[in-house]
């Protein structure tokens, strides 16, 4: 009995020792390891570039390691997973990452909460003068720059030229009325099931599309004083009427739009069931010409404009993503070196050549080598002139959620436009004060 108790007590003592040593200051065990010869290591958390099917970012990260001696742990995940991880990371003030994704809709929130480092002291004049000014503005807040764009995710109006030709339509629609007329002609001739399908699913993609529609009808949810003002907002009412009638009465918009995300919309377009893709990402052009992924190889074209009420309201949406440095990072210098490398003009051109990603440097849109490979970028350039980003407000996520929920009720006819707008205003009022 005594022997048993003795053994048990030894086990207990060992267990307690293990716990105590585990809870101890781990820095003591690393004493002397902080010599200057030690390799610096940074951790980078970014979503995978939607066009990077060849591991380009991974390959270039390894090249960066070779050139600088800085070791990089590159973590790639889906955008949603990255967003969740970063939110928890920032809110808990942890320091797991040195370079993080900064979405264009997060800038106000991240900057106000002092989660990210202003980059003013890091950037040189070359970036300031050479990168598309609209992109840098999107990642600036109260005069400070917080992110360097790595993904110029601007959306463009594409259409199925072969189907338009077959219907005897000489040029793609310039206005919303023309889009409706052409859709009906194409449907009557049995060339498509619907004119277009939109990604209006209750998710951020739905909010993006609604924002695009309101912009291109000449409106905005937010007024000049930064408040949600929808009462008697004529352009917004017209935008919602157009969508609602198109879905339920005129039926030239696929009703599945209510539950579709970007992937679904692309899937339907690539099968040739619709003729117009209102806000296609740049890489879709290449996907549409890949026989493994598309049934419309050689059929699509990029319009030099995007539909609007008239030419002045024509708009395309830009949803760029940037790299930022968390305030909690202990390797800010090394993190900046990585960002600088990954946003250099040389790297940007290589990225455009290898995966077809849109450049962030203004010059590269006129680069003869790139235009020889991507002649349709000329039309991208024309549409880019009308690019607009999402609303830059501190309470964007709550606002976006309310608009998504209430807009679907309007589009399904569960609520009148007037009542739906009142519901948006009253729900937004609780957090916009």
């Amino acid at each position, binding site marked *: 009995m005594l022997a048993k108790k003795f053994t048990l007590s030894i086990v207990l003592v060992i267990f307690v020792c293990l716990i105590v040593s585990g809870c101890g200051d781990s820095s003591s065990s690393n004493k002397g390891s902080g010599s200057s010869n030690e390799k610096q290591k940074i951790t980078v958390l970014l979503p995978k570039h939607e066009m990077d099917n060849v591991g380009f970012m991974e390959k270039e990260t390894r090249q960066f390691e070779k050139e600088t001696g800085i070791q990089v742990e590159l973590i790639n995940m889906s955008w949603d997973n990255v967003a*969740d991880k970063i939110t928890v990371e920032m809110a808990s003030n942890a320091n797991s990452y040195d370079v993080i994704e900064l979405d264009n809709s997060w800038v106000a929130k991240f900057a106000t909460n*002092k989660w990210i480092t202003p980059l003013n002291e890091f950037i040189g004049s070359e970036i300031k003068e050479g990168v598309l000014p609209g992109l840098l503005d999107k990642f600036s807040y109260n005069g400070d720059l917080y992110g360097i764009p790595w993904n110029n995710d601007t959306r463009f109006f594409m259409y199925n030229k072969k189907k338009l030709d077959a219907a005897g339509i000489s040029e793609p629609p310039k206005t919303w009325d023309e889009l409706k007329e052409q859709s009906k002609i194409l449907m009557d001739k049995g060339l498509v099931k619907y004119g277009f399908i939109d990604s209006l699913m*209750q998710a951020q993609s739905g909010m993006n599309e609604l924002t695009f529609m309101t912009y291109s009808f000449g409106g905005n949810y937010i007024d000049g004083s930064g408040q949600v003002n929808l009462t008697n907002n004529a352009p917004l009412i017209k935008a919602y009427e157009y969508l609602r009638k198109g879905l339920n009465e005129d039926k030239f918009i696929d009703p*599945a739009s*209510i539950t579709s995300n970007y992937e679904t919309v692309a899937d*339907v377009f690539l099968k040739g069931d619709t003729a117009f893709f209102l806000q296609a990402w740049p890489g879709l052009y290449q996907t549409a010409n890949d026989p493994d992924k598309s049934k419309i190889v050689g059929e699509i074209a990029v319009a030099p404009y995007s539909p609007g009420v008239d030419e002045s309201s024509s708009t395309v949406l830009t949803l760029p993503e940037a790299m930022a440095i968390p305030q909690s990072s202990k390797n800010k210098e090394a993190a900046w070196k990585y960002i600088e490398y990954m946003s250099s003009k040389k790297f940007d051109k290589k990225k455009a050549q290898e995966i077809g990603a849109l450049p962030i440097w203004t010059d590269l849109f006129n680069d003869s080598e790139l235009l020889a490979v991507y002649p349709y970028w000329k039309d991208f350039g024309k549409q880019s002139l009308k690019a607009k980003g999402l609303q830059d407000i501190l309470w964007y996520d709550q606002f976006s959620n309310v608009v998504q*929920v209430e807009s679907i009720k309007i589009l399904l006819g569960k609520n009148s436009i007037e009542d739906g707008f009142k519901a948006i205003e009253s729900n937004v009022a609780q957090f916009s004060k």
Partner: protein
Amino acid sequence: MTQKVLKRITNAMDSDKKLGYLLIFPSLLVILGVMLYPFLYSLNMSFSKMDFANRTMNYIGLDNYIRMFKDSYFINSLRLTGYFTIVTVIAEISLGIAIALVLNQKFKFRGFVRGIMILPWALPSVVNAIMWKWIYNPNYGALNALLTQMHIIGEYRDWLGEPSSALHAMIFANVWKETPYVVLLVLAALSNISGDLYESAKIDGANAWQAFWKVTLPIVKPVIVVLAIMKSIWAIQTFELPYILTGGGPGGGTELLSFYIYKATFKFLDFGMGASMAYMITLVTFVLSLLYIKFLSKDGEIV
């Protein structure tokens, strides 16, 4: 020195009671660390407002709880979760008992059918949600193809495109996955019923229906009560179906409580209200469990 320390510990363990306390002490430490501390921390959070810029939590009393009940989206999610829970639990238990009764009969390939039956439950929840998303696809989904070919519907429909049909489509996906678990447990209970009981009932003149109500049901009742409690708790906590299948839409029509808590906490960064809503779930689950036990058992005891 070491010997003295060990002797003291050995002496301290003289009684079995003391030894017991000593042995559970490490587990107690772990439980306190991973359960009690987060529990109390989140309780504190539910009475506070997080200030991220200054890294502080400011006490605001019951403000989060008051705000929560003023939030129409929260009330909507509470209502939807209640409906989802009641319908899924009733459907799963009724269907589960019916299927178990069939599978309890002797027939050819019974073992094989029983094995197949469990497959939906064996699927990971996420896979189940993705699978149903494809089945319900409005343009290329299997459900539309099947119903059109059987001439039940004339044209393809967007099953997730209306709040009400989306909610019921989600309920169907949940019932499909969760019913086999009920079948499994009820089958186990049925296999314990002696054939003599049915013979006695038959001699007493009972028909099959009466035998079910008077013999089968009372014996499997304890299992049903446990299942109802477990299923209710699981249904209230359902997250992956709205997250993957519908995104809570359309128009908030499938925004169950767990999903709304996730949005409030991690999308809107309203940690205080997120915590208060999570406590609401805990309370509802607790009350429901008590109600079930009271309602379904005699004298308030499950025997």
